[in-house]
């Protein structure tokens, strides 16, 4: 890294521990998980035992009470080893943020300590077959029946589907009101009428689990409602505002790994009697990759610190961090393959995995096109 950041002692220790977990529990297995498209619980268990599921959970609920910046550091360095594992990890934060931000005292006491200890994994369910970028088009309903809500519908492409014990589900309580008729619910694994669909086959992030969530007259107690009825999209959008920096941080980790693997190769690979790095077409590509990576890192870190400093309106900022960093990482990973030539294309080497993994980062947690809509919308609020 050509740009050094001065981290606090705690932050350095955090990065050190994440790297240690990466080296021991992820690096030796990541290519195999990818190849076999298999989920391994060991790195998740290690992160739990290391208290690292508690990063964003307030101290009073047994967490570490750290901020978005520390969450980004953890996610960045985990992604350096495997973006699939970091997806499982980060998706759990996506499910935890609604509870932290909107949960009432009882809900926080019930769920946050187990989340902090990594005893319970979370998922966040908004997307549906006909409602992706057009999130307001969701069809899942939640009908109030006495002291219960009854959920019906299907959520699609949910990370940690079937694994998560705590699922935050956005459903319509009053379909007539459109987006204002949506509410957020906590659905627990094992709730009657709740099940996960088949595991999806993916291009990348193959060590993570993605499934449908199916609600078939799923009956949950009324106190599982998060915030108030009608607040569903408020909960969802605020959560995504917080979590988007995490997707940007994932991009940093993957791009860093792609840069390192490919530059080491370029310095060793001899063609025309010398390392290919000596050729300007190659070395300038690395110069460009590094500039783009460091610019992304600076933006992601700055936005994370902006949020932690107590910013109120940061939708545009977090959308920029996510969109810019993931677009750059996609470019960096593509170039990393090119700089390694045939080696980059072979599945014995990891850069092709980075390339496939990083593609999803431009799509999930709001496509980069939607991020640009958000940025443009926020921009026009400032420059009226």
């Amino acid at each position, binding site marked *: 890294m050509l740009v050094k950041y001065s981290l606090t002692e705690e932050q350095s*220790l*955090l990065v050190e521990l994440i790297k*240690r977990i990466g080296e*021991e529990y992820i690096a030796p297995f990541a290519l195999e998980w990818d190849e076999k498209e298999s989920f391994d619980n*060991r790195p998740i268990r*290690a992160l739990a*035992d*290391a208290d690292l599921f508690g990063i964003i959970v307030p101290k009073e609920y047994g967490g*570490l009470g750290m901020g978005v910046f520390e969450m980004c550091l953890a996610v960045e360095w985990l992604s350096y080893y495997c973006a699939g594992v970091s997806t499982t990890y980060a998706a759990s934060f996506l499910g935890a943020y609604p509870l932290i931000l909107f949960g009432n005292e009882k809900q926080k006491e019930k769920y946050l300590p187990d989340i902090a200890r990594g005893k319970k994994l979370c998922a966040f369910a908004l997307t549906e077959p006909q409602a992706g970028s057009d999130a307001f088009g969701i069809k899942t309903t939640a009908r109030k029946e006495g002291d219960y809500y009854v959920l019906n519908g299907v959520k699609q492409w949910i990370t940690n589907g079937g694994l998560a014990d705590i699922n935050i589900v956005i459903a319509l309580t009053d379909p007539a009101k459109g987006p204002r008729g949506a509410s957020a619910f906590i659905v627990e694994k094992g709730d009657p009428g709740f099940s996960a669909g088949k595991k999806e086959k993916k291009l990348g992030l193959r060590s993570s689990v993605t499934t449908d969530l199916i609600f078939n007259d799923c009956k949950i107690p009324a106190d599982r409602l998060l915030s108030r009825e009608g607040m569903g999209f408020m909960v969802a959008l605020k959560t995504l505002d917080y979590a988007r920096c995490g997707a940007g941080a994932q991009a940093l980790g993957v791009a860093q790994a792609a840069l390192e693997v490919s530059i080491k190769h370029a310095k060793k690979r001899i063609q025309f009697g010398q390392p290919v790095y000596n050729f300007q077409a190659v070395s300038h590509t690395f110069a460009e990759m590094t500039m783009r990576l460091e610019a992304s890192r600076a933006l992601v870190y700055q936005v994370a610190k902006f949020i932690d400093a107590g910013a109120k309106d940061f939708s545009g900022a977090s959308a920029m961090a996510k969109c810019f960093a993931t677009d750059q990482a996609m470019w960096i990973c593509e170039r990393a393959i090119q700089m390694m030539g045939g080696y980059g294309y072979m599945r014995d080497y990891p850069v092709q995995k980075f390339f496939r993994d990083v593609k999803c980062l431009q799509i999930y947690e709001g496509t980069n096109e939607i991020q640009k809509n958000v940025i443009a919308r926020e921009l026009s609020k400032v420059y009226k």
Partner: protein
Amino acid sequence: MRIIVSIKGVPKLETVKVDPETHTLRRESAELMLNPFDRSALEIAARLKEKYHAEVIAISMGPPNVIPLLREAYSICADRIILLSDRAFAGADTLATSRVLAQAIKKLAPFDLVLMGLKSADGETAQVPPETAALLGIPSITNVKDLFFEDKKIIALRETEYGLEELEAEPPIVASLYPKLDYFRPPSFKRLLEVKNRELEIWSAKDLELSIEKLGLSGSPTRVSGVFEKKFADKGEIWEGEPEELAKRLITLLKEKGFLKA
């Protein structure tokens, strides 16, 4: 329930250099890591702690550069960590080491269980656990795969070349561990932060009331009479072919050499 885990710092393999003249390890230039066998001991201690709410005390004899390893033990499962350090301990063989450990363990009585890794990755003797037990006058069970408590007794599963042996013992005992674990917990972040601000207990020869002549090099009956580099004179051969054909060839060769009766 009180469990004492004794750990050791061993040189990191990739940083080890061997003196070309004396063939001994240049320890001073090597970085230390936790003896891998002791990582198992700590993991077993952590599991027993969860199961029985035991108190875990980690001790280590060594120079102050083993402090990070004791801190690691704290962040994994230890409630208390003690460094046994004194210039007089330097150069100790297994007996002189066991004297220090036994004396420290005695000071920590009452205890139910002393756990150690089967052996150290540098010394490879596997003598310290049974020697410590002998000095303490308590039973020792070596090469333990797993152990648990049942009706106030310790049940230990011990791996032998003939199979698994189940042993029963009255606590306290010393167990040397060689489990096959599929998971070792990493340090806890919270405890890593906590241990940085904790004062470390250091016990010297004086604290342990040990007389100097029984310690370190002077208290060690083991003498290294020589170190040499093993030369492999014979060249290996690789045979390739069908298994049946290779087996026949091998039998012929063994008969020729007189290992099999013709």
